[in-house]
Structures are given as C-alpha cells and as structure tokens.
C-alpha cells in the first residue's frame, strides 16, 4: 500500500514538475534557461503587451473557440436528446459517427480535412478552423453526455406529459434543466479544447494565425523567455476555464445524485 502511494505521488510529480518549471522561468529575471534561477521579475509579462501580433492571435483564438463552443453546443444538445430517444441501432450509428474521431490522431483528421478543402476548392480560413475544431469537440461532448444521459430517467418526461405539459413544455421545464449543467460544462470544455488546439489547426489554418500557432512559430524561431510567460498565462487560462466548468459541474453532480436517489 505504501508502494502504491509512492508510485501515485511520483507519477503526479512527473505530471506537474514541467508545468511548475515553466511558471518559475516565466518570472526569471535573466534570459537564460539554466538552473538555479538568480532573480525574479515580470519583464517577460510586460513584453507580451508589446507584441501586437500576439494580441491579434489571441483575439482570433478567442473568436474561434467561442464559435466552436456554440456550434458544438447546438449539435451536441440535439444529438444528446436524440440519443435518449433512439433505439439500440440508432444509438450505435450515432455513437460511431460522433465518438470515433477521438480514437484517431489529430494528424489524420487534419490531413483529411485539408484534402477535402482542396478537393472542394474551399479557401482555408477561420471557418475551416472552426469546422475542424467542432469535429474534435463533438466526440468529447458525446462521451460526457452519454455518461450523464445513462442516468437520465425518461419516465420524467412521461410524467411531465401526463401532468399536462406539451412536448415543448416538457423540454423547457424538465429535460433542459436536467441536462443543462452537463451541456454547459461540455461547451466550456469545447472552448478550452479549441483554444489550445494546434495539431489539426496547422493543416487547415491557411494563412490564419491562432495563439497556439503563434506560440509554435515563436518556439521554432527563437528561444525566448517570452514563451514562458505566454505559456503561463495560457496555463492559468485553461485552469480558470476548467474551474468554471467544475463550478457548473457541481450542480450537475448534485442533480445526478438526487436523481439516482429517487430511482
């Protein structure tokens, strides 16, 4: 049991040390990457604001992530409601279509979308980026929703109809309030996923530059501590987005719990 605990904590250290190092170096006063660190400053953070291209990339990434989250939410809400109603066969078809991409490398998805765009003569743009990000985030949403909906008691909808609510009224008063927390946290996760996406984006971006693509070019161009400060902010942003996701998820857990208790 002690051994198990040791392995668990060693693994955690392995996962966290690289992130901690990046954060430490972002406050490094010198332009070096060697240990030990001889002083701290915020100069690399100040530099961020002097780089207009960085700002543009950030805005573009935020726009793309927002669009991705909205499209994913719309498609995903309909698909989850469908999942509740379909028979076994329909469910399998929907799952194969909407979950399989998660088991494929981003390289494969990126390249195949690039080929499609080329064949259709579509110009690569922000739109193609959003299209590709939705292909990545729908599977994640479907996995999360499937786990949530497995707990969903469909007789609740019947009870509502029985008590006099129409189909639309039932959706508004019963179904949506019960699945909304999961949907919203999925939308937030889609946002985070899109905001950080690089592998697929690099194939379908054309001349557009998102934040990860800009970081990538910085990484290839030079070795500058600016990357550390940008990375630290990106990291904090991811954590903040996730924290919001969990805040919503708390309602989700509470409702799931009470639902389980009632059945």
């Amino acid at each position, binding site marked *: 049991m002690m051994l198990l605990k040791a392995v668990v904590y060693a693994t955690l250290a392995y996962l966290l040390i690289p992130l901690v190092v990046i954060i430490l170096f972002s406050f490094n006063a010198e332009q070096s990457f060697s240990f030990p660190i001889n002083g701290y400053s915020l100069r690399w953070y100040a530099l961020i604001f002097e780089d207009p291209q960085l700002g543009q990339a950030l805005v573009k990434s935020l726009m793309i992530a927002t669009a991705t989250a909205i499209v994913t939410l719309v498609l995903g809400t309909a698909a989850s409601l469908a999942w509740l109603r379909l028979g076994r066969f329909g469910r399998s078809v929907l799952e194969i279509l909407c979950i399989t991409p998660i088991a494929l490398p981003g390289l494969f998805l990126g390249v195949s979308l690039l080929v499609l765009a080329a064949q259709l003569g579509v110009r690569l743009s922000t739109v193609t980026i959003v299209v590709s990000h939705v292909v990545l985030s729908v599977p994640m949403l479907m996995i999360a929703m499937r786990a949530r909906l497995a707990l969903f*008691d469909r*007789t*609740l909808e*019947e*009870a*509502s*109809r*029985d*008590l*006099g*609510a*129409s189909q639309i*009224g039932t959706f508004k*008063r*019963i179904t949506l*309030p*019960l699945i909304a927390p999961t949907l919203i946290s999925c939308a937030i996760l889609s946002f985070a996923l899109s905001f950080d996406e690089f592998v697929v984006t690099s194939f379908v971006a054309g001349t557009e530059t998102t934040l990860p693509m800009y970081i990538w070019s910085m990484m290839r161009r030079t070795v500058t501590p600016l990357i550390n400060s940008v990375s630290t902010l990106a990291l904090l942003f991811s954590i903040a987005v996730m924290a919001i996701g969990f805040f919503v998820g708390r309602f989700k857990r509470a*409702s799931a*719990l*009470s*639902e*389980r*208790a*009632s*059945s």
Partner: protein
Amino acid sequence: MNNGTSAEAPLIELSNGQKQFGLFQALTNINLAINEGEIVTLLGPSGCGKTTLMRIIAGFETLTSGTLKIDGKDVASLPPEKRPVNMVFQRYALFPHLDVFDNVAYGLKVKGVEKEERRRRVQAMLRTVQMESLSHRFIGELSGGQCQRVALARALVNGPRVLLLDEPLAALDLKIRQHMLGEMKRIQLETGATFVYVTHDQDEAMILSDRVVLIDHGQIVQVDRPQDMYFRPRSLFAAKFLGETNLFEGKLTVSGIGQLSLETQDGPFEVVSNDAAVSGNDAAVMSVRPEAMSFRQSNAQLDYAVDAEIADVIFSGSRSFFHLVSLGGQKFRVQVQNMPGAALPVAGDKVHVSWRKDSATVLPLSRISS
C-alpha cells in the same frame, strides 16, 4: 363480464383492444369497463401486458386496433397531456431539480392555474398525503415511502378522473408497503378518485381492489371481485396465480345423466359444480385451497375426502402447514388454524382429509397450461 349494475356509462371503456409491437402481440381482444369511484387492479405476471394496457389508457401507447373511451369520448387522438388521467410511475419519476412543493404544483402550473389557488390546492393535497412539513425538501432527501406520497399528491392534485398506478409499491420495503396500502385506500376514499392499479402481487391486488382484472399473455383471463376470483377461479391459471392451491388431476367421465365424475389417482370425485366449463373426456383438475381442507370426518353427501400420510408439519404461529401424500401418491398441503391445546397430527400419521364439495372448483386442464 361483471361490470356491476351501475346505470351510468362506465368511466373507461375498452372494446376489442389489440396492441402489437412489431410481430409481438402484446394485447389481444381487450374488453374492459371501469366505473367511477372503483379501485380496479390489473394483475398478472411480468410481461403479461398489464403495464402496456395502463400506458394505453395514459396515452403513452396507442391501440393497434379497437377503441378506448374515457367518459364516453374516444380518446385515441388525445396526447397524454390532454387526457383526464394522471399516473403514479413505478419509480415515481419525481423531478429531481424541483422540491416537493414544486413537484406537486407542476401540473397546475403548466395548466396555468393562478398562483394563490395553486398554493392552496398544493397545500391541501400535501396535507392529505401528510407531507406538508417536508414541502421544501428536494427529492433526493426523501425516503422511498415519502417519494411515494409525493408521487400520489403530484398526480391527485390535478383532480384526475382516473388515477393510474404502475406497481407503485414495488420499490418499497415490505413493512412500508403494507402501511402504504392502507394509506392508499384512505386517500382514495378521501378524494373519491377512480384508481387503476397495476401489480404482479396478488396480495396487494386482493387487499386493495374492488375488482381484479387478471391478465395472462396479453388476454384478460377473468374479471371479478377478489373473493370471487379466489374461491371461484375460472381457469387453472387463475387458481394458481391467486394464493396457494392443491390440484387433483384426472379425467372427466360421464357417470350418469348430466353427471360428471373426475377419475383421479385417489378414486373418482363426483363433480357438482355445473358452471365448470368442462365436459366428458376432458383432462381436468380439481382445485382446493389448503385452508378449505381439514382432518374431520367427512360427510359423503357434502364432502370430498382422501386418505393420506403426513410427510412434514410446519408450525407458523397462528397456523400450521401439513405436507401430505395421498394413498394414490398425490402430494398436497393442508393449512389449519392453530388453537391452544388442540391436538394436531404429526409426521408419519395416517389421516383422513376432507373438504366441502362447494369449496372445490373443477377446471379444464387443456386450455391454459401454465
């Protein structure tokens, strides 16, 4: 069919109802009339079609053919929300994101009942089910019995003409179940609603119902008052499904003019029952309840009798159960009310067992073989 003698038209009337799911015939030739104010139980083994029948009345399923009238009106085209019936679901289906009060108020709210009126009616109903003190609890914080009360209140507050209950006690412990049965009877008396109650539990059916509708393989087997169904089953299925019974199997032969005799391993029994749907040369059984049998001397005019040996005795407080084997090799059981000081036979004893001719029913064996 026994529809009672009320002069009014029945509240629910099903004629020639059929229901098919793909190739599966779920319900066949259903004719049923339910009167205002009755408690009617749909009783049958799982998968017999009783829940389907209830869901058809509620509007969640539609008949493949036949008609369903509620209050004299054909409701085939009415969706569930437009029907004057409400349902108590098997696992209650209480809304987990609403508290007790809002669950009960739900139906009135969607119908647009004005707020003060709504509040008054919900509170009155919560009082009826004795849940007014817990009205702001969430569903996850309630016990099974409390959920049951909320589910009843949520349905009844809408003043339905018919309350449908789908195995509402199945998820409860035995003790709470018995208590809730009493409660349900009380609430039915207070509200005067018509109850249609689905269950596979014969005890619940007999305790609660004015009439029992026995269903097997998608067909109505018998509709009767509980006591009639228990003592006068019309089929072997009914005899076996309600309570425990002893079956003496044999062949019917004509023993005289208009007289039948059941030839069994233990000799012939003269058949007196003339309502039995049996005739000569049929394989048949005589069904006798264990509590109808006794160890007293028989009267050849009034009683049937066999000689048997006691294999085992089980004492269970108020009653004793005797496992016997007749001289003809037939196994059967006798139940006797225990009295202090009464001398009862023990295992190994040879006894004479008798029962009144009118307590036995002779039933055809061929029709239903379950």
